[in-house]
């Protein structure tokens, strides 16, 4: 790679620099820290123990036990286009927390410096008045305008949440879900499981039984959340599953933008991550949920990596509610994830923008569900799938127009790009239209990286790998534009990194 690469007009300098700075998985290191584990495996006792560690009220324990009783009767789903290795659910830890977190720190100042250093190193400093640093280009951003509150989850526990007071002034509740269960039981009781029921699917049911922590957000009526909220998930401990639960409630006329990031150390053995995210959106409210999923994808031979089984669903419960999911899925050995929108309220709308990249031996089966129940509901799906190496990448989605959802609209665009002849790209959309005043349009294409575009870049002295990264970034542009700024920049560089070694 030449350092003197001449940057031509129309080629974003940042992109080229990012491509030049490509490295392998940056977040594969491990924090040496003393941990406390629950015994391996899952059982009623473990569920009770997790509940007890979190100092939960009786109703929460009951709820978990109900889920557990159901889970033992369920079977793993087999419909995804995934070659699923056998997961031994009794051979992993369901609860792991740093010893220093046994006595919950009163404030961020009391948090174990090692933990703070971990997040610092990940580019997510747990200090207030700071933005999501560590992201290329972030220094150019006006600090005052770009404050982001962070809830940091380390293995099974939340280690701290920033900007709590400032958010409280606006009436916004942002804390870990374990805190919310104790401090806002009325809200949690009312909304937990109301979007993703305990028995929704195998992994959501497992999560309902054994979730250890996660984030809780409540934005009161008419409130525009004064800053972006984010949760950063870090899996650190070996042989440990992470089961977090996020609940976001956006009350009438409120607005919040929420970001999620995730990383894990490089290891030879795979690790399980089974999360649930529930979003409740009331009348005229709007939620934006953005994810950059960068769990360890496994090595070049497909060893290790995170098995990511996630249930994410937003319920536009009342008229004119809006939700927008944006996801950049570059990590994980296996991704099984379908962020969905239930468009229940009349005139509500849902959008889904996704980039899913699978390289080496990664497998991704991801997409969305748009369930139109209310009148005049709108949805839009833009999915970009990129496969390289030996990877398999599947878009799987549902668009359903119920008989009552008169005058509704859906537009779906799914494009797949193949890099190399050993990978696969698949599209499995389900379209169910049960009234005629609605219009549904679905388009999908599959192609390889365009030779003309590559040639154009190469003729101008751009190296082969950079050229591919440029073309891929162009292919993903519709989705990248939907991301908040910092995420968009991070995502661009991730696209390049994820594809490293896929050319030639």
């Amino acid at each position, binding site marked *: 790679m030449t350092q003197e690469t001449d940057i031509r007009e129309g080629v974003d300098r940042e992109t080229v620099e990012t491509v030049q700075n490509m490295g392998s998985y940056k977040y594969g290191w491990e924090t040496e820290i003393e941990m406390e584990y629950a015994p391996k495996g899952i059982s009623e006792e473990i569920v009770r123990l997790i509940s007890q560690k979190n100092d939960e009220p009786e109703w929460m324990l009951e709820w978990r036990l109900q889920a557990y009783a159901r889970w033992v009767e369920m079977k793993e789903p087999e419909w995804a286009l995934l070659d699923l290795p056998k997961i031994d659910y009794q051979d992993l830890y369901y609860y792991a927390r740093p010893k220093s977190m046994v006595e919950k720190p009163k404030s961020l100042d009391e948090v174990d410096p090692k933990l703070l250093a971990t997040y610092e190193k990940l580019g997510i400093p747990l200090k207030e008045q700071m933005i999501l640093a560590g992201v290329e280009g972030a220094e150019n951003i006006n600090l005052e305008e770009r404050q982001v509150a962070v809830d940091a989850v380390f293995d099974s526990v939340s280690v701290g949440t920033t900007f709590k007071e400032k958010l409280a002034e606006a009436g916004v509740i942002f804390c870990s879900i374990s805190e919310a269960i104790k401090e806002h039981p009325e809200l949690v009781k009312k909304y937990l499981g109301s979007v993703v029921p305990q028995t929704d699917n195998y992994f959501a049911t497992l999560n309902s039984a054994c979730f250890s922590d996660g984030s809780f957000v409540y934005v009161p009526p008419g409130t525009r959340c004064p800053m972006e909220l984010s949760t950063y998930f870090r899996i650190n401990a070996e042989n440990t599953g992470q089961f977090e639960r996020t609940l976001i409630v956006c009350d009438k006329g409120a607005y919040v933008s929420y970001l999620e990031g995730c990383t894990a150390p490089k290891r030879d053995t795979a690790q399980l991550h089974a999360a649930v995210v529930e979003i409740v959106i009331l009348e005229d409210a709007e939620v934006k949920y953005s994810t950059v999923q960068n769990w360890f994808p496994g090595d070049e031979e497909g060893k290790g990596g995170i098995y990511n089984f996630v249930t994410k669903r937003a319920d536009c419960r009342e008229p004119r509610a809006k939700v927008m999911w944006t996801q950049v899925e570059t990590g994980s050995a296996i991704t099984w994830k379908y962020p969905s929108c239930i468009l229940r309220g009349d005139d509500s709308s849902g959008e889904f923008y996704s980039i899913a990249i699978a390289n080496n031996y990664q497998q991704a089966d991801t997409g969305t569900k748009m369930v139109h129940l209310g009148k005049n509901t709108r949805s839009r799906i833009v999915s970009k799938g990129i496969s390289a190496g030996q990877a398999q990448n599947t878009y799987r989605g549902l668009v359903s*127009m119920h008989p009552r959802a008169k005058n509704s609209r859906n537009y779906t665009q799914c494009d797949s790009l193949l890099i190399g002849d050993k990978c*696969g790209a698949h599209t499995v959309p389900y*379209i*169910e239209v049960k009234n005629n005043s609605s219009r549904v349009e679905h388009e999908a294409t599959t192609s390889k990286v365009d030779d003309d575009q590559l040639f154009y870049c190469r003729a101008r002295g751009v190296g082969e790998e950079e050229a591919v990264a440029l073309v891929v970034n162009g292919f993903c542009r519709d989705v990248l534009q939907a991301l908040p700024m910092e995420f968009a920049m991070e995502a661009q560089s991730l696209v390049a990194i994820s594809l490293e070694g896929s050319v030639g």
Partner: protein
Amino acid sequence: MAASEALSARLAAQPAGPGFDAGRQAAADRLAAMGLPGRRDEYWRWTDPTPFNAETATPAAPGEAEAPLFAEVDSLKVVFVDGVFDAEASDDLAMGGVEISRLAASEPAWATGLYGALEAAGQNPVKRPFAALNTAQASDGLLIRVTAQAEKAINLVYVHKSEVSDPVLHHLIKMEEGAELTILETGPAGARFNKAMEVDVAKGARFHHIRVQGAEQDRRAVTHIFARVAAEALFKSFTLTVNGQLTRNEAYIDMVGDDAVAHIAGAALGDGKDGKFHHDDTVFVTHGALRGESRQVFKKVLKNGALGTFQGKIWVKPGAQKTDGYQISQSLLLDEDSQFLAKPELEIYADDVKCSHGSTTGAIDDTALFYLRSRGVPEEEAKGLLVLSFLADAIDEIEDEALKEEIVARLEDWLARHRS
């Protein structure tokens, strides 16, 4: 009732025809292993297989005799009445360039190993139990070997007379190198019709298939086409379906040779006012060689609670570079009660390919309707024009102009009879 008992009962009610012992036994074994389908099977989620699983056919009154189609076309006519060969109504099974015999009366050497072979190959990755059942039980059908350009088309006419008829017919067609043949099919055939057609298209051969499923209201049908398309060969199939309680048309097209071309199209019109209308197209196109071109074009016009489904797949195997795969499934819902359920799939394991699919559902475009109305076209006529233009892409898949005209006339007739 246990699954195996249900299957035994199903088979006992319908004894197997003669000949092809090995092929029939292998199919019976396949069927025993896969069992009859249920609603939980992925490819039966939108169509209830119960009427096909039942031991006997639900009685269906034969409809009024339709004006015969393709009467003007120079063809060799073969008539089956409730699945039974009608020698008197049929022409002599002889013409230049083609060997024709009946499944129930002969077992030519070329057919022995081929019978059931394409059906067996089409059982992976999706199970097609009624095709295996067909191979095992078929009472009759035609064995056709084409060695050159056929003199004329073979015109299969299926007459339905008995309320409880339950015919199982299996046609086996072998197109030798460079041969060409057109097969026409018309008529409802029976109360419950199970038909399979295996077509082996050798290098450079050309096969055309045009089918009109009967306009009879109460009939039910489950049909399969299995085609193997060799290098530079052409396979084309078009189906028009008007009415029928329940129709499931499956196709499995395996493109095994380089530069092969396969087009499969369907137009379905259903009016639920006359009774239930449920139409299901389940299509699977496999690209296993270089530079294959495939097109799937399926259009449905639905009204008064009619239901249409489409499950289509383009499957590009590793190494099938330069594939050009296209698929479109569209439906026009003429009122609030009709439904369209679609699953247009792509499964692609080669990188240098061009594959796309589209699917749309909606009502008649108000703007287009207004345009025609403003130019003095009466509303019903304007709607008819828009429906025909909507179906045009599918009908255009018929190459022969005379045949196309007959199909369009049949469509216009349906539209005239089903004005709201």
